[in-house]
C-alpha cells in the first residue's frame, strides 16, 4: 500500500470525526443531563435509606452504544460517495472508517468512564455506593482502568456492526439485508458475550450458566471479533460501486 493510502485514510477519519463533533457534543450533553443530572438526582432525592441503590449511569450504556452504532450505519451511505468523489480509494476510506469506529468508541469510553466516577462521587455524598445490575469487568465505577476499556470494546463492537449493516444496505438495497439483519447484529452480541458483559453477559451467566472466560481469553476474543467485522466490511466496501445520486 502506498503512503497516499494511509495519508488519505488519516484525512478521512479526521474529516468524519470532525463532522460528527457537534452532534456528538449534543449527544454527550443530553446523556449527561438525563442520566447524571436527572436520573441520579431523582435517585438521591428519593432517599437511599437502607436500600441498595442501583447505578443510573449504567443504563446510559445503551445510549452510548446505539447512538455510535447509528453513526456507524451512516458511514458508508453518507461518506463513501463523498470520499470516492474526492479522489479517495475505498481502501483508504475503509481504513479511515475503521479509525472512526475506534475513535467514536474512545469518546464514548471516556464519557462513560468519567460518568461512573462522577456517579460514584455523588452517591458517596449520600453515604452510598451504586450497584450494577448487569455484569461488568469492573466492580466499582472508580475502576476507570477497567471500565473504559470495557466500554471501548463494547462500543467498538456496536459501531463496527453498524458500519457492516450500513454497508450491506448500501450495496444490496433493503430486502436481503433486512432478512439478514439477525446475522448482521451477531458481531455486537458476540463481543459482549465473549466478555460476559451487558445483557448478552446476563444471558451467558444467568441463563446459560456459562462462567466468564478469563480476561486473557475474553478480551482478545472480543478484539478478534471486532477485527474480523472491520476486515469483512472493508472487503465488502472495496468492491462496492458508488450509487447514482438522486437529483
Amino acid at each position, binding site marked *: 500500500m502506498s503512503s497516499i493510502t494511509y495519508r488519505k485514510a488519516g484525512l478521512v477519519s479526521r474529516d468524519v470525526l470532525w*463532522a460528527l463533533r457537534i452532534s456528538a457534543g449534543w449527544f454527550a450533553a443530553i446523556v449527561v443531563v438525563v442520566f447524571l443530572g436527572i436520573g441520579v438526582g431523582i435517585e438521591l432525592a428519593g432517599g437511599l435509606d437502607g436500600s441498595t441503590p442501583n447505578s443510573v449511569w449504567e443504563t446510559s450504556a445503551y445510549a452510548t452504544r446505539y447512538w455510535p452504532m447509528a453513526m456507524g450505519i451512516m458511514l458508508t451511505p453518507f*461518506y463513501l460517495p463523498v470520499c*470516492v*468523489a*474526492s*479522489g479517495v480509494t475505498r481502501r483508504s476510506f475503509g481504513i479511515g472508517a475503521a479509525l472512526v469506529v475506534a475513535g467514536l468508541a474512545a469518546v464514548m469510553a471516556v464519557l462513560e468512564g468519567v460518568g461512573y466516577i462522577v456517579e460514584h462521587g455523588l452517591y458517596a455524598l449520600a453515604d452510598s455506593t451504586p450497584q450494577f445490575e448487569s455484569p461488568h469487568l469492573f466492580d466499582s465505577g472508580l475502576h476507570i482502568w477497567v471500565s473504559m476499556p470495557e466500554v471501548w470494546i463494547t462500543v467498538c463492537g456496536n459501531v463496527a456492526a453498524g458500519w457492516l449493516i450500513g454497508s450491506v444496505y448500501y450495496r444490496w438495497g433493503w430486502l436481503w439485508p433486512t432478512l439478514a439483519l439477525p446475522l448482521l447484529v451477531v458481531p455486537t452480541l458476540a463481543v459482549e458475550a465473549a466478555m460476559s458483559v451487558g445483557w448478552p453477559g446476563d444471558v451467558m451467566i444467568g441463563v446459560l450458566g456459562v462462567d466468564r472466560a478469563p480476561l486473557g481469553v475474553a478480551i482478545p476474543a472480543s478484539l478478534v471479533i471486532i477485527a474480523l467485522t472491520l476486515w469483512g466490511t472493508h472487503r465488502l466496501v472495496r468492491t462496492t460501486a458508488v450509487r447514482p445520486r438522486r437529483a
Partner: protein
Amino acid sequence: MTLGIDVQGLTVRFGDVTAVDDLSVRLAGGKIYGLLGRNGSGKTTLMSAIAAFLQADRGRVLVDGEQPYENPAVTEQICLVRDSGDLADQDSARAALKRAAKFRPNWDAEFAERLIELFRVPTRRGVARMSRGQRSALGVTVGLASRAPVTMLDESYFGMDAPSRYAFYDVLLEDYIEHPRTIVISTHLIEEVTRLFEEVVIIDQGRLVAHDETEALRMRGAAVTGAVSAVEAFTDGMTVLAERRLGGTKSVTVFGAMGAEQRARASEFDVELEPVALQDLFVHLTKEAPR
C-alpha cells in the same frame, strides 16, 4: 499536467441492463471533450467507470496508462462531478470547500473563492437547504478549483441559471487555457456548449456512435440556405434532419458530407452551405434506435 483516457471494450451491467456495451474510445490528454448521449445512453456510467466510482464487468479503463480503480495515485488526479455534486448534505459550502482543499492535491483556494462569488453560492447555508442551482454551482466550483488533470462534469451545471451557466462557460475556458487538462463535459444543452468542445463523443445504448473533432463532426452534414425552390431542388433525395422557412428563404439541415462536387453544385443552385448544428446531428445519429 494532462492525462489521456483509454477505454478498451468496456462493459458495465446493472442486473439485466447493459449500461455500457463493449465500448472503446481513446481520448488524448489536454482537450475539452463533449460527451453526448440520450437519457440512459450510458454517459454517467462511462464517466463513473473512468473515475473509479464503479468496476467494469468486462474490458478496462486506463488513465495515463494505469487502471484507476483502487489506484490512489490515479484517483486523486480524477475529479468527476455528477449532477449536483457528491456533497455531504450536512456540510455548508464552506465545509465542502475545506474538505476539497484537504483531499485535492492541486486545489486552488483563491480560484474557489472567486467562483463562489461569481456563482453567488451562499457559503454558510447547508447543502441540504440549497436550491438545485446553488448545489450545482457548488459542485462546479469544487470540480474546477480541484484542477484535477482529468475533470469530468456530468450535467453538473444543469441546475444553474442562464447567467451563471454562461459565466461558467467563460471561466472554464479561461482556466483551461491557463491550466490545460483533460475535461469531459456531458450535457443536454448542446448548442450552448458546442463552442467549448474540441472533440465530441456520442454514445447511444451504451455503444460508441461517433468520436471526432467537433468541426469534422459538423462537416458530416450541412445547413443549406437559399431561395425555397433552389434549396428544395438541391436537397432533393438527401437525408433531411431539420427544416426552417422564413418568407422566401429556406434553411434545410441535411446529413452527409459535402464534397467538392456538392459544393460546386451548391454554387450552381445559388445556395449556401454551412456546417451542421451539432444538436441536429446528434438527434439524427441517436434517433435510429429509439428507447
